[in-house]
């Protein structure tokens, strides 16, 4: 599918014609990320992060496959093989630091990508499926990163794995047998390390599959944009190539400069020194924390300190630990419901005064605080603070968002993307440089399927 004015792939040489008939992969690429994909002309830099996330996935797979050639998943030697990579394998240190910092940068990119989606309400119709698949990708990413961190079999690897797999023990009745079955024993050991390696190798490829679905789903309605007004006509869009390939190329350059700076000059800053000590089940580290990118969820997990009891009877309904586990998983699962919780017809936060306030003064500081609190020592005032911000987190998504989307009076929207960019619309010559055939009939005003904001769905 695409907009009616999307450029068509035309194979030129006999060879490309032959390929196009047998297996039209070049056509697929042309329509997916080439000139055949019309994209709103007004995307800002927040729209760079999808392509960057894709780059991170490729980066992780390439470095990861090289590491796997030299790594051995056995508790006796795992730590040593990682040191072997760092010392004896040619440029092994570079591969390992790129993979470890690559995980961190992947999360930075994904968080920005997700918060872009939250601010511009990209999760709304017609893009619900893109969003749902995105949340699936995020869950896969978290699982992959968690298992990857266990592989070097350092102190934090072991104790992190022990704490997180221990969470399954909180499930009533089946918890303990389930945990033993998942971990392959009472505590993580060789069995656990082996299955984690197997899954850590597998999941990125599963993720790649879901990313393809994610992009497929994206190409049905096309990209959203900072006004949230849907594309109406050709002058609203430019072809992805060369316009956004050029912009994404520049974004990739900035990303790579920051990334390589960390890899080559501060490679261990985002990691934990304890993980350079080999795992020792007999010696508990002073403070067990996951990697920084899990901090918000770890803060939510630890916020529940009291069992849910029937007052004055002492009967425990739900243990604190289980409450924490439910809340931690729930904090991501609520994202699955967002498209239906936020009913405002307006997408972009720029035109939603109330939403805008709650986003910048509520959700963002709350996330910042949870990021800090997840890594803090489990003592006051951090515990009380993480309880307050955990409460706000859930109130924001489950209570505030549904209510403001009901009562808010949005600001007037621009008529079209072209008007938002040029200040006026429908003037001669307002067509884009990319639109090579500016015909008056390129407007699709008469099609059915009008959105509440007056925009249109593209023809399928």
């Amino acid at each position, binding site marked *: 599918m695409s907009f009616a004015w999307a450029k068509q792939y035309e194979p030129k040489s006999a060879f490309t014609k032959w390929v196009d008939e047998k297996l039209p992969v070049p056509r697929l690429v042309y329509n997916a990320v080439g000139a055949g994909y019309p994209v709103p002309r007004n995307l800002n830099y927040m729209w760079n992060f999808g392509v960057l996330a894709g780059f991170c996935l490729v980066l992780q797979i390439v470095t990861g496959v090289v590491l796997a050639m030299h790594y051995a998943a056995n508790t006796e030697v795992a730590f040593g093989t990682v040191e072997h990579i760092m010392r004896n394998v040619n440029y092994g240190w570079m591969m390992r630091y790129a993979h470890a910092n690559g995980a961190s940068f992947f999360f930075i990119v994904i968080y920005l990508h997700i918060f872009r989606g939250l601010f511009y309400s990209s999760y709304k119709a017609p893009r619900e499926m893109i969003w749902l698949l995105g949340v699936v990708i995020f869950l896969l990413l978290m699982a992959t990163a968690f298992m990857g961190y266990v592989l070097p079999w350092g102190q934090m690897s072991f104790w992190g794995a022990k704490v997180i797999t221990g969470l399954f023990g909180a499930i009533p009745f089946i918890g303990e047998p389930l945990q033993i079955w998942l971990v392959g024993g009472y505590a993580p050991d060789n069995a656990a390390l082996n299955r984690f390696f197997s899954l850590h190798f597998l999941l990125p490829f599963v993720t790649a599959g879901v990313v393809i679905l994610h992009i497929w789903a994206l190409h049905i309605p096309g990209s959203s944009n900072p006004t949230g007004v849907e594309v109406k006509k050709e002058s609203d869009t430019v072809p992805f190539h060369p316009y956004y390939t050029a912009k994404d190329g520049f974004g990739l350059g900035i990303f790579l400069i920051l990334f390589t*700076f960390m890899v080559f000059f501060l490679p261990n800053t985002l990691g934990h020194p304890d993980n350079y000590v080999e795992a020792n089940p007999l010696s508990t580290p002073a403070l067990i924390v996951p990697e920084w990118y899990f901090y918000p969820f770890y803060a939510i997990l630890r916020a529940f300190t009291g069992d849910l009891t029937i007052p004055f009877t002492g009967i425990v309904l739900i243990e604190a630990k289980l409450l924490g586990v439910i809340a931690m998983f729930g904090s991501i699962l609520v994202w699955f419901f967002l498209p239906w919780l936020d009913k405002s017809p307006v997408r972009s936060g720029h035109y939603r005064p109330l939403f805008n306030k709650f986003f910048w003064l509520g959700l963002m500081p709350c996330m910042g605080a949870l990021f800090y609190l997840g890594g803090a020592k489990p003592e006051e005032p951090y515990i009380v603070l993480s309880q307050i911000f955990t409460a706000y987190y859930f109130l924001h998504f489950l209570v505030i968002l549904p209510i403001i989307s009901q009562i808010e009076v949005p600001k007037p929207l621009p008529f079209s993307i072209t008007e938002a960019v040029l200040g006026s619309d429908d003037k001669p010559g307002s067509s884009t440089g990319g639109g090579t055939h500016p015909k008056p009939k390129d407007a699709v005003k008469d099609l059915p399927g009008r959105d509440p904001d007056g925009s249109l769905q593209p023809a399928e």
Partner: protein
Amino acid sequence: MTIRLASIIVGLALTAVLVLWSLAPGLLNFALPEDPPYYAYQEENIQPAGGFVFEGPLGTWDEQQLQRGYQVYKEVCSACHSLKYVAFRNLEQLGYNEAEVRAEAANWNVPGIDPLTGEATTRPATPTDYFPSPYPNDVAARAANNNAIPPDLSLMTKARKDGTHYVYSLLLGYNEPDPEDVAKSPDFETPAGLYFNEYFYNINIAMPPQLYPDLITYSDGTEATPEQMAEDVTAFLTWTAEPSLVERKQTGWFVIGFLFFATILAFLSYKQVWAGLKPKKT
């Protein structure tokens, strides 16, 4: 509509559970962490005047210093600490040539097998061997060190926060306890067999003070003050933890220089490609 009502109910219920069963009891017993009743260790590390030569984006190894540091390790620390991830052949990086490394390795004994009887014995090391442990096993290590195991030092400067400065501080940290702080912490004591060291997380460490003036005679004639030896051995241990440190930073300059160039080009082509579109409204 139903879903939003349900969501509001779930959200309020969850918050109520959190606030009433976790937050409220927590607030009732709210207590800020008190100053620990025991003598707290010093988290701010010291460093040699002017810092280490390999620090900073431009720092490089000083081979003379690494060789001196190796001498300190060999003559002092190796009595208790192993370096199990470092092979003798790696010493070539310190500026020794192949023959010197071969000769140096032969000064060390590693576990071996008697070729005639097959019994366990020791043999002189070869360049491909790794530095041996001074103790046959952990039990022996504990027995000789007041029940503490001297950890392997290969990765020490990466295995502690601010590791390089930490190791330097620790080696020079056997000071007298501050009488004022002692007065404030009634529980403070240094049990027999342990030594007060204000940089160790536990304040009392099982490692005796190591560095005394002129403990060793440097082969290059440098005066062996404790500060000098601490700086040298710390530099050596930073190298054992990360032999690729300098190569890494040099590669980094090259890579980032190239990326700057490429990014400027990318920026220019981005501007060029978009130049054909009408400018944004002012």
